[in-house]
């Protein structure tokens, strides 16, 4: 498995039957493919529906049915359509069990930066601030470093998307929880040593007493 697959596979284990989840664009979208068949999760798409299903075969594409990335998708039985106000009432109102998002930086206090690099890249926050602020559980899913540069920081120095909202960070190297004491490494990928993982992380890792291999 490549790093992205490792991450998506592991994130998928965070959910339980019936969870309502919003998956960000990019890597987080891949998570849907790894959810166990024993459970059913309900995917919310912030452009206006719940019950997001996989991409259709080409001849079944409907021009009006796309995900928040603009890609053709399907809607599952039991889904429904709504407008942007309702969509964000669901998100902001605490009705999502979890959201999975990428990050430019995330830090040991649970701060997240993923919407701009001043003077360089300013795509905008889209729905990310609402997702980070509203979901019960915010999971950051990303490669551990940006080609070697730290992304898991003591303190983010990029403009924040949300302050103190991240619950968990899942990378190809391991799983880290944001705790009051700091960043707790609870699982690691045995392809890496703990030293390598720490080196790839600016924040100081606290090693969990029940540390295990990534499930």
């Amino acid at each position, binding site marked *: 498995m490549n790093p992205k697959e490792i991450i998506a596979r592991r994130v998928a284990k965070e959910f339980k039957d019936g969870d309502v989840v919003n998956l960000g664009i990019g890597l987080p979208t891949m998570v849907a493919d790894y959810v166990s068949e024993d459970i059913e999760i309900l995917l919310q*798409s*912030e*452009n*206006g*529906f719940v019950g997001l299903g996989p991409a259709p075969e080409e001849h079944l594409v*409907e*021009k*009006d*049915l*796309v995900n*928040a*990335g*603009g890609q053709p998708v399907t*809607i599952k039985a039991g889904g429904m*359509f*709504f*407008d*942007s*106000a309702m*969509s*964000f009432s669901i*998100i*902001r109102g605490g009705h999502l069990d979890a959201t999975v998002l990428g990050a430019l930086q995330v830090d040991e206090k649970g701060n997240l930066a993923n919407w701009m690099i001043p*003077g360089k*890249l*300013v*795509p*905008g*926050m*889209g*729905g*990310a*601030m*609402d997702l980070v*602020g*509203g979901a019960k559980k915010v999971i950051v899913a990303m490669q551990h470093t940006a080609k070697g540069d730290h992304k898991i920081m003591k303190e983010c120095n990029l*403009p*924040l*998307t*949300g*302050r*103190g909202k991240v619950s968990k960070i899942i990378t190809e190297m391991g799983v880290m929880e944001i705790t009051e004491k700091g960043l707790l490494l609870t699982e690691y990928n045995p392809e890496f040593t703990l030293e390598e993982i720490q080196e790839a992380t600016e924040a100081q890792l606290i090693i969990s007493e029940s540390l295990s291999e990534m499930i």
Partner: protein
Amino acid sequence: MKKKITIDAAVNMIEDGMTLMIGGFMAVGSPHKLIDALLKSGKKDLTIICNDTGFVDQGVGKLVVNNQVKKVIASHIGTNKETGRQMNEGLLEVELVPQGTLAEQVRAGGAGLGGVLTPIGIGTPVEDGKEIIEVDGERYILAKAMKADIALIHGSVVDEKGNIFYNQSTRNFNPLMASAAEVVIVEAEKIVKSGELDPHLIATPGLFVSHIVEGAE
């Protein structure tokens, strides 16, 4: 009561310098024909309120590429590199707003509210320059109501009175914008007689809609 008008007549209502709301999400559920006609008209110095600036060749983004836009208020501009370029070169003012806040601001404009209090953006650069209101010990950003001179929206099926059904994910900002502008012009994929739409399926009442134009298939 509601009159079908030509695309030209619709675009003629738009004046240089006006504030427009334009529906759609990544160019899905956008009034494409109205955008194309506006493009041809050359109207300029527009302020555009929209979810995103689409792509360089699709949706609201075309107006940016054609230098007709003075200011954009949106949640996302990342899929249209021209928006970013013009912003960085100081040619275009861009106000970025969290998507849910933008939805509430437009809704508030249509609902006669002064604004809403949202926790989203607290502790981020979004709160800079905003009024902060404390309610029961929690800090909220005061997000003011937004209104526009004209809203250009898309409808999947529109009846003669202007009642609108939005198919699937085309709904997005369209019904909110339909409530929040002085003049509301809907581009209809299909126009039907009054009474043909199930009154439970209509998401925008015709009383919000000023004019109907015929859109693409």
